[in-house]
């Protein structure tokens, strides 16, 4: 069972490795790349804890083999905050609104919500609930998570509006 060369960009860093084909992408990120923020709950697609971005799409890292991610660009939870460690708007909202308790599910939620709000900047409450349906949390009861997503959506739109206004009146360099 021959090992296979894979190259991918993980959080902006080019990575090259030789892996057994049966190594999941989640295990590759955690073991080979040392990025243990991608959590594994169920390892069969049900819980969403392992959600990462592959070429921008939110996907389950436990439902891909590392070999299938050859030639892709990956973002894990470690790549969501700024390089200087400043939390993203979504992360900040989870902290502010008690969107986490033990934190096990949080990487999957934050990555999923980051992709969701990028594609749906102005979601209805129903759309938010539907978007959260693919991630399970055993602690919070979801209300704090829902509040965090609502707040993050509003904050991101306000930021965009500010940036737009600044660009229009020329006050921004």
């Amino acid at each position, binding site marked *: 069972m021959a090992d296979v060369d894979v190259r991918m960009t993980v959080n902006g860093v080019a990575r090259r490795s030789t892996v057994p084909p049966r190594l999941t992408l989640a295990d590759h990120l955690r073991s080979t790349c040392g990025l243990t923020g991608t959590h594994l709950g169920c390892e069969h697609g049900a819980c969403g804890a392992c959600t990462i971005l592959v070429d921008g799409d939110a996907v389950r890292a436990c439902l891909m083999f590392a070999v*299938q991610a050859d030639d892709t660009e990956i973002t894990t939870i470690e790549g969501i905050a700024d390089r200087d460690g400043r939390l993203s708007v979504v992360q900040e909202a989870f902290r502010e609104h008690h969107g986490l308790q033990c934190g096990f599910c949080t990487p999957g939620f934050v990555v999923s919500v980051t992709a969701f709000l990028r594609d749906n900047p102005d979601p209805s409450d129903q759309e938010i609930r539907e978007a959260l349906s693919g991630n399970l949390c055993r602690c919070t009861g979801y209300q704090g998570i829902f509040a965090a997503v609502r707040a993050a959506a509003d904050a991101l739109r306000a930021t965009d509006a500010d940036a737009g206004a600044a660009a229009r009146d020329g006050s921004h360099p």
Partner: protein
Amino acid sequence: MKPAAFDYHRPDSLEEAVTLLAELGDDAKVIAGGQSLMPMLAMRLAAVDHLVDLRRVGELQGVVDRGDALWIGAGTTQAAIQRSADIDAAVPLLTRSTPLIGHFQIRNRGTLGGSVAHADAAGEYPAVALTLDAEIEASSVRGRRAIPAGDFFSGWWTTALEPDEVLTGVAFPRWHGRSGFAIEEFARRHGDYAIAGATVAVELDDDDRVRRCSIGLFGLAPQVERAAAAEAALVGTVAGDVRADEVGETAVSGLDSVPSDLHGPAEYRTRVGAAMVARAWEKALQEARNG
């Protein structure tokens, strides 16, 4: 690592893929989005010696307008189907069924071909293909063939595909005139496979008589089913004359192997199925009348 060890192949063309399958025989399996196969490999419900990744097979991509039908490549993701205005215009039932499949993270990888080949008894795409009399196209080194959906689904996760065949695409016939389409399902949680569901396509003539109608059932038998007796009873009737709950009752009356599981016994599923047919029938009819 949970799955058993295997060798990995990544063909660049359909020809290369079918040649590999012919050479490797029964020990090989193709992987598309992996959203059904990976869980089975992880739980060791399935084991393979060779995995053939279809990701780079360009022939499985694209959407082609064939006039009387819309061909959709097997490799098209569920997310791409959800976004396509062309698909919504030609095959609205497929578009409407898509948000009911899993969650957006699943749909970003799951494919049309994978859903149809996996042939889950509660699968939305198998039900839509069966309801619309789609043709499922397959290729092997022995040649190409088109399999009517009615001959394709043959039992629990079982289809007419041979182990050396690649499903290349599905051709969905367009319905014209005053037609309406609906899918209704009941699941415990959003994104779960449905406990039971129904798809309806109906076409009315200018006097509101049913010219054509198709009723698909999912989650109610080892494979997706058509409610042939209910369809036959409806054709020629004036649409408003038949009560929706009667349509539902007739549609489930012929079922004899409704599954029982921890979500409920067969009688319960059957009742849910009848209710889903009734709801889908009303919705589809409403749309056809306005057409």
